[in-house]
């Protein structure tokens, strides 16, 4: 929850860039009450981004992704490769994401070559 204001600013800053923030909320969105509480928080915090419902898979998403402490961040590049984990300092987050976005833009602008395996 503490990271949300900064995340909101990142989403705003890169709204025209190839960037998406996707949340996975792990606080009991398996019940209607849990979901209601979640929507309330989303509204309160002006979260505009999309969240997976953690319990909509079995095992849950956080179990599959072996999340043992919260918050836990995965940085996934435009090719779907994990580039960083657990970078949580604001300036380091911006630097890491900025570089990844630049790479994504470069790849999109480059003439199409055979896809990398």
């Amino acid at each position, binding site marked *: 929850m503490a990271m949300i204001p900064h995340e909101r600013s990142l989403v705003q800053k890169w709204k025209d860039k190839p960037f998406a923030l*996707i949340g996975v909320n792990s606080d009991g*969105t398996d019940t209607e009450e849990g979901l209601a509480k979640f929507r309330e928080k989303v509204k309160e915090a002006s979260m505009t981004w999309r969240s997976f419902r953690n319990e909509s898979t079995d095992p849950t998403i956080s179990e599959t992704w072996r999340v043992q402490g919260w918050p836990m961040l995965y*940085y*996934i590049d435009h090719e779907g490769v994990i580039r960083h984990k657990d970078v949580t300092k604001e300036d380091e987050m911006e630097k890491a994401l900025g570089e990844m976005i630049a790479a994504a833009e470069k790849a999109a602008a480059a003439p199409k070559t055979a896809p990398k395996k």
Partner: protein
Amino acid sequence: MSRAVLAASLLLLTPALAIAQASDVKPAATQQDPEAAYKELVKAYNKAISDWRGEVDAAVKKAQAEGTEFPPIVNNAPTKEFVTRAQELAAEYAGKDEAIQFLGFVCKYASKEINAVKKAVQTLAADHATSPAIRKVLPYLAGPAMRFGVVTDPVKGLLDEVAEKHTDADCKAQALLTRGTLRLQTATNDEQRKAAEEDLRKVATVAKDQDLTAQAKDALFEIENLQVGCTAPDIVAKDTDGVAFKLSDYRGKVVLLDFWGFW
């Protein structure tokens, strides 16, 4: 059956029933019953921790409201008396299998009692490394090794000993699983990650208990799919409005996947 007979048979049954029920009730903790003493200890510990959490919550809220620093209670879980009690009980059964669970308790629940943990690990290594009862407490060892640097070596020594020399297959497998998990959590280079992977792969070849194999498989999934440089596993799930979507829908974009909670 007449009423009289029925009544008589009920009367006859009643005392037997009462005895059966009485024997179901757990006897009070005595020196003669280590199982009950252990349950009692865990129960009292859980109660104390739950009370303490309540006090911490109240103290944190108060400090936040007043803009003051958190009071010391926040960092002082009331573990000491329970650790001491577990040590006493372990001493009472010194050298016997019954001591193992109490030594395990010390490893699992100590918060600041580093010396107690160190001693418990040493006692487990010296007296109990070959007992089949060691299996149950092996999972508790990774935590202390992470929390208290000083016990890392004794923990590793014990895990090595059980993994290599124990005669029971599942004790061996559990030691490999705990050691592999610990190695994975502390790995800072590829060589160390490889050592962790070897331990975890070996679990399936050693274990009879399929649960151990399954746990090792989960840990291996992390090594194979969730490290930096791995292609992220796809997520096919629903969003919080019930709309299905996939992580791979976002290919071409940079994705920050944020596992978060309400705090």
